[in-house]
């Protein structure tokens, strides 16, 4: 079956989340992705969570998830010989995704300008915390600190408490997708007869360009002179997360165009005649707000979260249930759509994993595949380059 990226050769010199997720997007949709790991393996192999909570570089969920369909080779790039091999791998690639510190490749004599001399089609993407230039380029960054500096973190949480980061590694996943987009766009230019490029993707800058509130509210500040603030819980009448019989649901009723229908639904048609019923939510009187909120909470607490959402969707309200991972994986909607891949792995066993993001009518995604064992493809990849595996091993290069 034809894939989106048939024939595209991607070299992944990146660790942890952002670069490997970019690599995964290429690999899952048909590119030939070679992942170069240090002898001890990608950082994500050591992070977990691990199968049965037993640390093992082959069973870290983070690694298993991020590296499907890739080939793994090990290489000690700290050695001269290792870097000679690295150069061979780069010269053979259409796209290279790397996450070394800024300037590292240049110190090794592998700057973009050097690499592109005989290879003008090359697309090199460098992912770093703060970018290749600027006064902070050598600063350290991680998920929480980059969300703090660049993203909407100051708005997550309650006005009574400390700010919260967004879940997991979303800043790095987001950055990985942005990088993959840039790489494909550059390949499109190459396909049209143009040149490759050196893509400089800072996680910080991706956060500053994050559509989750950040660009909207930065523009809002620019327009009004006011900054956004964390809000007190439950501050919007009949709107936002509330308890249900079995958890929480986040439904928008108060102040919306279907608010009167919502009053019918919750058994308070009498409130439709109240002078505040058609007002902006910010203008509700205290008495009216209390009446509505009380009846709304009472209605919700008698229903399961998904039932409450279904009944309110039926009258046109926006909303959703607040699901746990267990709710999610057992949910009939996702299951009926086949979003879960079943993966078989020699060390981690058989498990389900989130599969495709895209359903493509002309180039449907290939069958799922597991992530590689550390160095699983050394013989295949180095063999194809005509390198002597035993010699590499004796030089401690792999």
């Amino acid at each position, binding site marked *: 079956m034809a894939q989106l990226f048939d024939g595209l050769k991607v070299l992944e010199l990146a660790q942890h989340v952002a670069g490997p997720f970019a690599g995964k997007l290429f690999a899952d949709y048909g590119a030939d992705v070679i992942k170069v790991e240090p002898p001890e393996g990608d950082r994500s192999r050591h992070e977990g*969570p691990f199968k049965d909570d037993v640390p093992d570089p082959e069973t870290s969920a983070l690694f298993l998830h991020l590296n499907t369909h890739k080939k793994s080779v090990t290489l000690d790039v700290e050695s001269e010989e290792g870097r000679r091999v690295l150069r061979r791998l780069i010269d053979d690639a259409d796209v290279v995704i790397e996450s070394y510190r800024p300037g590292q490749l240049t110190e090794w004599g592998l700057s973009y300008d050097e690499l592109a001399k005989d290879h003008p089609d090359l697309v090199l993407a460098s992912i770093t915390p703060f970018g290749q230039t600027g006064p902070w380029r050598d600063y350290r960054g991680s998920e929480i*600190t980059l969300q703090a*500096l660049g993203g909407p973190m*100051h708005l997550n949480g309650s006005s009574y408490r400390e700010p919260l980061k967004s879940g997991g590694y979303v800043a790095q996943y987001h950055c990985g997708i942005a990088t993959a*987009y840039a790489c494909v766009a550059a390949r499109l230019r190459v396909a049209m007869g143009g040149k490759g490029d050196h893509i400089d993707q800072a996680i910080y800058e991706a956060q500053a360009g994050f*559509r989750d509130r950040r*660009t909207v509210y930065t523009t809002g500040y620019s327009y*009004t002179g006011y900054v956004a603030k964390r809000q007190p819980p439950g501050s919007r009448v009949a709107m*936002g997360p509330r308890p249900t019989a079995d958890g929480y649901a986040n439904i928008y009723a108060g102040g919306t165009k279907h608010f009167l229908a919502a009053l019918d639904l919750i058994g308070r048609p009498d409130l439709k005649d109240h002078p505040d019923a058609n007002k902006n939510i910010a203008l509700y009187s205290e008495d009216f707000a209390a009446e509505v909120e009380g009846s709304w909470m009472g209605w919700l607490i008698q229903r399961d979260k998904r039932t409450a959402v279904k009944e309110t969707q039926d009258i046109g309200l926006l909303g959703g249930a607040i699901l746990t991972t267990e709710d999610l994986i057992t949910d009939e909607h996702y299951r009926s759509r086949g979003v879960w891949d079943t993966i078989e792995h020699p060390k981690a066993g058989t498990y389900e994993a*989130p599969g495709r993001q895209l359903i493509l009518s002309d180039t449907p995604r290939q069958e799922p595949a597991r992530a590689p064992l550390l160095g699983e493809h050394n013989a295949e990849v180095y063999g194809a380059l005509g390198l002597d595996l035993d010699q590499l091993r004796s030089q401690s290069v792999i």
Partner: protein
Amino acid sequence: MANSNPLPLEGIRIAEITVVWAGPHVTQVLAEWGADVIRVEPITHVQPYSRGGERVSSKEVSRRTAETGTLTGAYVDCDPAEEPWNRNNAFNSHSRNKRSMACDIMLPEGKEAFLRLIEKVDVLIENNVPVTIERAGITYDVLKEINPRLIMLRMPAYGLDGPYKNYRGFGTHVEGMIGHHWLRGYPDGSPDETGEAFTADALAGVMGAFAVTSALLKRHQTGVGQQIEMPLAEAFLPALGEWILDYTMNGRVAQPQGNLHRTHAPHSVFPTQGEDQWIALDVATDEEFRALCDVLGTAELLADERFQTGVGRKEHEAALNQALAEATKSWVNDDLFHKLQAAGVTAGSVHDEAALMQSPQLNDRGFFEELTISGIGTHTYPGIMTKWANTPNHLRTPPPRIGEHNEEIYIDLLGYSREEYDDLVARGLVGTTYSEQLVPRTWLATQER
């Protein structure tokens, strides 16, 4: 360096029928890299939550809302004025570089214009409830007959089939429905304390741009377009992969994590001088912990038995965090940030919008740019999130007023005659504002009172 390299999407024309945040973000990032994006938007009904044209609040309420720190729908100078739909931050933060064409696909005349547009574009992007596209009769199987090279991206919240097919929601509802809202809560709190995140829109934006560009690259080989279905929920799910695998491999249901990390401690935010000032710290190694204690002058923590190893610090994280918070609270936030970075500690201030716009790093890299909207003013906008070393790139044109490009699109691109075009305008189907009947200017009346 001279701009010798063209933008990669020059020559690609895209039509969008998008609403709210996610769909418009896809076209934002495509337009930034050279695509000609035409926004198809009606003036005969108001697209909900898109241009700030519905339920417009008065100047007074707009100001009060902004003052309390809610900027979801803010107007220039907190003033909706005559045309709030051209002054709205949610719209104007994505729509630079785009063109606007007034066209209501639900009306016969609008559908005809839209189908003529489909012949002229490479890509169509929409993020409506699936039933809307079905009712309009513009599904991919219809459109590909008109233009077999068309790439159509559909971005429903949950999918083109399944029980939630026509569920309506924003990014925050999608984050709930895939487990993100639960995961990011306070470990000792409940989801109503977390505020609402629109992470789904951010992720779908870049993922949609990746998908469309990938299909363009494929089309270069095959000559044919295709439909891409990318539900917001499914574009987001993979970003929670390790939490999902922890359930499918180990049966563990993820609990709210807040600022916790699986192994690092400290890994949280700490108060500094002033109101609502925080610094995030992420200590992964003994070396970093030593450097942290050196800067903070907390030798006693370094000596404390409990905090000698990473495992120990994680085990006694609550006590450690409390002690560190005592030490950070007398610091000026920015001083501490730079001192810690200089000492090799992974630290980052929690920055609001004002602080972000002053960032020496972003400004050195030229992230923010100014745009002037005629009659509305010159403002600073967030720029382009990716740099290409050999392809300098800037914002090109300001956010379009509704219908701003009607004439050039109907007449020059679609080949309408002047008479045909004038007739559409005379009948109120094409224009540059909403009618008074459709949107009574109640907010202006309030102002006068």
